[in-house]
């Protein structure tokens, strides 16, 4: 039983990692119906930023964290301006391809600049474990869980209760109509990319002690976070968290109880089953015009 609970808890920690990355996918999708395949690579870049600030320049952890998040927000805006704005409104798949291209590009550029070794930084969460009875949870994982929950709550409130959040939802429904209603559509899209890149940077910084920083980390985690976002219903913020948790727990339990090999495909099997039953994901809204 203790094994089970320990696996469950580590699954939840893993799930929060996926949820945190999935949050970035969901934000951009929620505001602009664009799917950003480079989200994992933005996270990787955030990790490298923080390595540069903390590991190389020796800035204090929290200040370096802040710099990395701000730096990534600017980077996100720049990406939106250069890559996304010209093709906004064209078929979704071409934007998907463009962001896949961006991912390729960022991965190899990061590999060229920072090398291909695993990098690590000293963080306040690196050592230390939390013990509840016989249950053990490392501080770095705890920090991810806490951050994911806080970010989800903040962003959920932002989308549902602020003017800007409402404007973003309107933009995603129909850009032209939103523009006629006086919503500064370009600024909205730019802002959401900044927020999403900042969330990716948070993920990158918090994951740095767990996965270390290397140029392929984004690809690996991004491909797991993506099903999480889809499972939760792309476009639902709590859905990203729940989807991430489901994927994480399944992966963790499958790795423990099932023969080798199941760990990697179990999340995808569950995803396919869920998509068959509920094509719009668990929390997604889907309406179809009736003919």
């Amino acid at each position, binding site marked *: 039983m203790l094994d089970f609970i320990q696996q469950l808890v580590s699954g939840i920690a893993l799930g929060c990692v996926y949820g945190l990355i999935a949050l970035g996918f969901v934000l951009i*999708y929620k505001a*602009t*119906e*664009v*799917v950003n395949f480079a989200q994992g690579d933005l996270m990787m870049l955030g990790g490298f930023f923080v390595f540069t600030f903390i590991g190389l320049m020796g800035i204090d952890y929290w200040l370096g964290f802040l710099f990395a998040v701000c730096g990534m927000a600017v980077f996100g805006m720049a990406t939106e301006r250069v*890559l996304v704005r*010209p*093709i*906004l*409104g*064209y078929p*979704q*798949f*071409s*934007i*998907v*391809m*463009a962001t*896949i*291209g*961006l*991912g*390729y*590009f*960022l*991965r*190899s550029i990061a*590999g*060229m600049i920072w090398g*291909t070794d695993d990098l690590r930084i000293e963080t306040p969460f690196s050592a230390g474990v939390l013990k509840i009875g016989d249950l053990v949870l490392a501080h770095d994982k705890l920090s991810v869980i806490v951050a994911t929950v806080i970010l989800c709550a903040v962003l959920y409130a932002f989308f549902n209760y602020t003017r800007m959040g409402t404007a973003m939802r309107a*933009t*995603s*429904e*129909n*850009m*032209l109509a939103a*523009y006629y209603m006086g919503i500064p559509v370009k600024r909205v899209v730019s802002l959401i990319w900044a927020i999403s890149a900042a969330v990716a940077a948070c993920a990158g910084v918090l994951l740095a002690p767990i996965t270390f920083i290397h*140029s392929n980390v984004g690809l690996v985690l991004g*491909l797991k976070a*993506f*099903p999480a976002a*889809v499972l939760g219903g792309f476009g639902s913020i709590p859905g990203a968290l729940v989807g991430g948790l489901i994927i994480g727990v399944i992966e963790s339990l499958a790795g423990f109880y099932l023969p080798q*090999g199941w760990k990697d*495909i179990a999340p*995808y*099997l569950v*995803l*396919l089953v869920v*998509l*068959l039953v509920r*094509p*719009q*994901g668990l929390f*997604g*809204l*889907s*309406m*179809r*015009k009736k*003919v």
Partner: protein
Amino acid sequence: MRFIFKTDYDQDIRILKHSGYWWSYGVLLAVMLAAPYLLGSYLQSQLVFVFIYAIVGVALMILTGFTGQASLGHAAFLAIGAYTAGFMQSLGVPFIVYFPLAAILTGVVGALVGFPALRLHGIYLVIATIAFAFIVEEVLARWESVTHGNEGMRVRALDLLGMPVPRDSEAFYYLCLLVLVGAVLLALNLLRSPTGRAFVAIRDSETAGKSMGIDLAAYKVKSFAISAAITGLAGVLFAHKMTFISPEMFTLLLSIEFIMVIIIGGAFGVHGAIFGAIFIVMVDPFLTALKDDLPVLVASIGDSLGMSPEAAGQLREKLAKIGSAAGLKGAIYGLIIMMFILFEPYGLYGRWLKVKLFFQLFPLYKRATFKRQKTYVKSERNR
């Protein structure tokens, strides 16, 4: 400018619309038939890869270009075809049996993948096909009695009715060419049939298609099955060309490469698949050549512009260093994808059409002919 006087309704759907087609495609076919005797063995081998990629490109064109169903799982179909060939061959089944069998098997698997696609669209479909590809990859790695797992599998030379066809021979080249021509003719024929028109209708608007009485479910499954079956044929050829197959050859990156074939080629016509395949296969040797020659070339240009020999030498070394940096290929790949989507969304075939139209209308060509209409994002959630 050619004006075609139509005297027959069939003229609209003929594959070879007028004598110009006979000429140009006849010449192309003749060149392709003569190519093994004109080109070196390296280029011939590259051409075989172009053919295999083009076959997959045609398959993907039917699914993505015509039916509008995106797939990032075609590497899995290729893998199923390749492993069918490898396994059947080890059982002693002759080529003429397992070649169509591979197509049937992948076709059936494709139809099975198509079923969830009935309810999914857009990004959900993409992720479902990715999930499918991952599962196939893992199965190939684990099902060791058939696939030999991660060790990979040797594929012996192709044996066509008792006649051995090694991977570098002219016969293998002609076989690939034959399959490609067959696939292209199939796609063109499909496109002018009611089935193909139904595919295009589904791509343009599912709602409109449905109200015209098109059975969405049947046609989507059909499209998936046809596309997968053609990819399976390519898989058999791929296995025989590589002579060694292992699960890590059929990853997501290969699926992305296949999508790049049709994006770069231009995802609205069969020509695009061919152009894209040429580009994708040739970009690699081209980059390698560029890596070796460009630093020398730039240095010699700098030299002729009056740069001091030391500065030119330094420049050359610097460029060579950048050129040999690990991962440069990925960056260039990424740049190519982004550039095509931003600046040439109709792909190479679109550029070809523009150039052609420019000469046809010579002084009257307007850039605006190909200008994209401004569109606005509308939610796909309630389409």
